[in-house]
């Protein structure tokens, strides 16, 4: 019933929001959404794009576990996660999370939780194509701190 997709094609927040509203039903009072984009600069370097790689099958499973954990923690009506792979030029959309709930605290918390865990637990590899050379990105200490801020980590952590 939730929607999880990994794709090279771009996505449309408008379409995902509409689809979410249809599934969520008449007692949906809150839809929180997030879109991550490729920034054009990173510190002093220009970023021309990202190269995103995944492990078909395992990546989707890692996202499903994150969404399942969010459902265990909050009362959610519908969740949609779309994550792009391949070469994404600067300013491209990378990832979308849409969460529907009866009430806004649950929608906000789950949307942010899912993003925080996508950063550290979802099976993707991300190479920044930069003016000063390409580099494979790692989760930052800030990313881990945000994940760990959600009290006990999720059991599905691959770390």
């Amino acid at each position, binding site marked *: 019933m939730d929607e999880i997709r990994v794709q090279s094609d771009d996505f449309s927040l408008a379409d995902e929001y509409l689809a979410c509203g249809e599934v969520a039903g008449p007692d949906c009072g809150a839809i929180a959404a997030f879109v*991550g984009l490729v920034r054009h600069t990173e510190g002093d370097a220009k970023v021309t794009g990202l190269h995103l*790689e995944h*492990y078909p*099958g*395992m990546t989707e*499973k890692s996202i499903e576990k994150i969404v399942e954990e969010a459902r265990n923690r909050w009362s959610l009506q519908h969740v949609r996660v779309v*994550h792009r792979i391949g070469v994404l030029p600067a300013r491209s959309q*990378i*990832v979308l999370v849409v969460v529907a709930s009866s009430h806004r605290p649950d929608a906000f918390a789950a949307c942010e939780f899912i*993003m925080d865990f*996508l*950063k*550290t*637990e*979802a*099976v*993707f*590899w*991300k*190479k920044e194509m930069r003016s000063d050379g390409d580099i*494979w*990105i*790692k*989760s930052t200490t800030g*990313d881990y701190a945000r994940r760990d801020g959600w009290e006990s980590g999720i059991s599905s952590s*691959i770390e």
Partner: protein
Amino acid sequence: MKVNVLFFASLKEDLGVSEIELDVSELAGRSALFDSLTIELGSDCVAPLLAENISIAVNRNIEKGEFVLKPGDEIAFLPPITGG
């Protein structure tokens, strides 16, 4: 017996290969796997696979401890992940 071994991201780039078919002994575990990889790829190539920040997945499940391989298993070497 034959298993498939996958390399992702920086490992794939460094090794110049994304997937190999590997001959391992029956009931091979972690150490027999690395022995076979060393024969196949050479010890210079295998050293980075032993790094602490490289995870091993067997049939898409992360294995932190010992494991026992079966014919046709899919072993993947995963550098540090980051999505979002």
